[in-house]
């Protein structure tokens, strides 16, 4: 039996977002949405995390950080890109320092659209991330 679907721990990283998506991510932890019901924890430590939730795009300065966080996460791990910025660069795509979506740097498993992404769709993205996590575990096990 696999326990990944019952205990997905999340690391939330804010790239160059406008903070709109971050507020929605945090809203998922509040009493209204309460993702802890599904065993989701917001860990803040890449070494404990199963799902990397990235909001905002990558720029010249944070490429290294995103890569580093991803590398520090033990397998199996998945990446969920939250919001238009994380998916493609969003409204900042043409800015001089922006590289584009998160998939320019690390492999992304789930794309959550929206500007800002709504908590419902973020939770949905996490649920799809869990499925991807299960698939990866089966492959490595």
């Amino acid at each position: 039996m696999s326990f990944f679907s019952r205990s997905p721990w999340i690391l939330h990283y804010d790239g160059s977002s406008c903070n709109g998506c971050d507020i929605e991510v945090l809203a998922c932890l509040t009493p209204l949405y309460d993702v802890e019901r599904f065993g989701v924890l917001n860990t803040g430590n890449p070494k404990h995390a199963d799902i990397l939730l990235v909001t905002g795009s990558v720029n010249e300065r944070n490429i290294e950080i995103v890569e580093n966080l991803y590398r520090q996460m033990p397998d199996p791990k998945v990446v969920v890109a939250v919001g238009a910025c994380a998916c493609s660069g969003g409204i900042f795509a043409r800015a001089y320092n922006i590289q584009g979506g998160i998939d320019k740097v690390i492999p992304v498993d789930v794309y959550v659209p929206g500007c800002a992404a709504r908590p419902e769709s973020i939770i949905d993205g996490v649920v799809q991330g869990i499925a991807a996590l299960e698939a990866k575990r089966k492959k490595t096990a």
Partner: protein
Amino acid sequence: MTPAVYGVLFVFLAPVFGGLLAGVDRRVSARMQGRIGPPLLQPFYDLGKLLQKQARQVNPVVEPLLLGHVFFMAVSGVLLLSGTDLIFIAFVFALAALFLVLAAGSVNSPYSFAGAERELVVLLASEPFFILMMAAICKVTGASTYAGVLASPQLVAVQLPGVLLAFLLVATIKLRKSPFDISTSHHPHQELVSGLTTDMSGRMLAYVELAHWYESALLCAFMVLLFNWSVPLGLLAFAIAYALEVLVDNSTSRAKWQLVLRSTWAATLVFSGGNVLALFLLSR
């Protein structure tokens, strides 16, 4: 049943007890925050997941040290229930905690290292109390083993109310509850990243959790020592104390280590020391 059987039972039942306690804790905490909270068995799911996840070996000594941590936590319980001298238990208990400090201190992460240093501070804060508590219990009951204390006609909590009070304070440290959880950073607090456990992944973290479950069970056993006239009463007292701890955990912010050290030493000295001194003077 012979005491040795109780010891063996502890090895298998204490994790179940500790895990369920953690599950209840998370649910009650969630309710206090207006949330529904995770399923009761969530800590077991988490443990299962951690065991299935890849464990990054930061260096070759972390795993043996953490295994030592779990082992000595379990051994303290086994020795306690199978009739070893109570004061000796206090030392084995400290030794178990020391293994965790060594494991966390052996890695390069500054967060882990800071966590290890703080764990040493809380060890320094709590250890004198446990030794004094055990000595006081032995003195009052005239027995030096678990079964002996339970069989004693003396009512420990009545004779040692100060020790009971200080125990509640020190238990906050051992149960890793705010405001005294300075060395780890249990979710949802994220000070120091994850403190002691920052560099531990997969089964390494599972060992730490497991050891903590043993530790909770051990504290419950200590509570029964204090309420030695009936085991159910001791369990009830532990349940009430734990509910208080959860309330305090949810309504306070973390203290600085200086405050932790000062307040626990003051409680040990004033409440426990005063209690023992008063008994001594009265009995003369």
